């Protein structure tokens, strides 16, 4: 026979209350879980919608991430992009090999680049025209284009053809038109027909250029650029240096489209010259 005593009335009431509270809490917890699960489903749905919208926008966004010069977004009829703009920018300015501008200019500007480098494209299409207009045309600055051709096979192919354009003193036209038509890096887009269309727009004779580009001599400017780049500790492109003609070079610390920083650097050297 059990010796347990009967629970008192109060104890029974307390136990019932505890059970009721427990049940209520279990219900509340279950309700919270259900609510959270519904919330999670809604959040998942919303996140999926956001991602799908982002993917659609991303797929259709401008593949032309570098902005073209003002007013030159579209191809002009019959010409390849950049032909007209390059010719206008460079008209009447002396070119010799890798140099642009008067040999007696007091300031030297050296640009290290790669024809496939997208930031070089931004520099060339957005910053260069203003520097040419303000400093090269007036005989204050002489520029030189140093092609490191380090980004891959297409860079070397393009670099050799650029060297051939330099032989014809058309390097700057070639480079400018090339950047206007720059393709997807190392996708194999630098084909002979692509190069010939650049040649044509830049005023380069393709037959002569092809012969030079096939020769070992076309690698010389690239080797020289890399040697100079190593000496100046160039680690990325575009890297631009300015200095007095025949004097030491100093690197311009600026983003590719920061025109005012380049102008300030040039003005600084002009002030000393």
């Amino acid at each position, binding site marked *: 026979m059990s010796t347990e005593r009967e629970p008192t009335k109060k104890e029974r009431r307390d136990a019932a209350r*505890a059970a009721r*509270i*427990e049940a209520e*809490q279990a219900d509340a917890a279950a309700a*919270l*879980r259900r609510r*959270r*699960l519904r*919330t*999670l489903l809604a*959040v*998942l749905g*919303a*996140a*999926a919608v*956001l*991602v799908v919208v*982002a*993917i659609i*926008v*991303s797929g259709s*966004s*401008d*593949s032309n*991430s570098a902005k073209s010069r003002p007013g030159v977004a579209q191809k002009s009829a019959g010409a390849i992009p950049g032909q007209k703009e390059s010719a206008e920018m460079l008209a009447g300015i002396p070119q010799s090999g890798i140099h642009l501008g008067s040999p007696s200019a007091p300031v030297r500007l050296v640009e290290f680049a790669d024809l496939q*480098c*997208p*930031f070089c494209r*931004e520099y060339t299409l957005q910053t260069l025209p203003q520097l040419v207009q303000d400093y090269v045309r007036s005989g204050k600055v002489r520029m030189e284009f140093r092609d490191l051709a380090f980004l891959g096979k297409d860079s070397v192919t393009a670099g050799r053809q650029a060297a051939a354009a330099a032989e014809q003193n058309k390097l700057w036209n070639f480079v400018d038109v090339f950047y206007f038509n720059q393709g997807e*890096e190392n996708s194999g887009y630098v084909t002979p027909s692509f190069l010939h269309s650049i040649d044509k727009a830049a005023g380069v004779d393709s037959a002569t250029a092809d012969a030079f580009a096939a020769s070992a001599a076309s690698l010389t400017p690239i080797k020289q650029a890399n040697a100079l780049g190593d000496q100046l500790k160039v*680690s*990325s*492109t575009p890297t631009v240096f300015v200095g007095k003609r025949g004097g030491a070079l100093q690197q311009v610390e600026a*983003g*590719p*489209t920061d025109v005012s920083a380049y102008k300030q650097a040039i003005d600084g050297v002009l002030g000393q010259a």
Partner: protein
Amino acid sequence: MTTDRRLRLVAIVLAAVGLCVAAYLTYIHYEGIKPVCGLGGDCEKVQSSEWSKLAGVPVALLGLAGYAAILASLFVDREEALIVGALFALAGFGFSAYLTYRELFSIDAICPWCVASATIMTLLAIVTTARLLLAPAAGRRGAVPYVG
């Protein structure tokens, strides 16, 4: 320490690290400098590809905003903050997965920084989802659980 507090702490650390990665990628995007890119990656190629921007906004900047929103949500003790945190982390995870797919199959180059961010975002999605499901009701977080 309750499970939720542990999860919250993990999420704070993850979001802070993600914020730093995104800040670095945003900085180099605007400065136009080449990222430090180890492990045979090609960050420049990835960062200059057509998928590096969304409607003109660099994805690095979107990531920065996303991490900042997630981090902020972790300091607010409200039901809505759990939802916002999970929403941003899950959307971030989905978009990171898409970008990683583009890196592998369209750009043909991998940017270790971007992979790091995608990994962090994946972990954040898991942690914030777990919190959304498991956290006690708002206002009770961190309190001693009622044991009857």
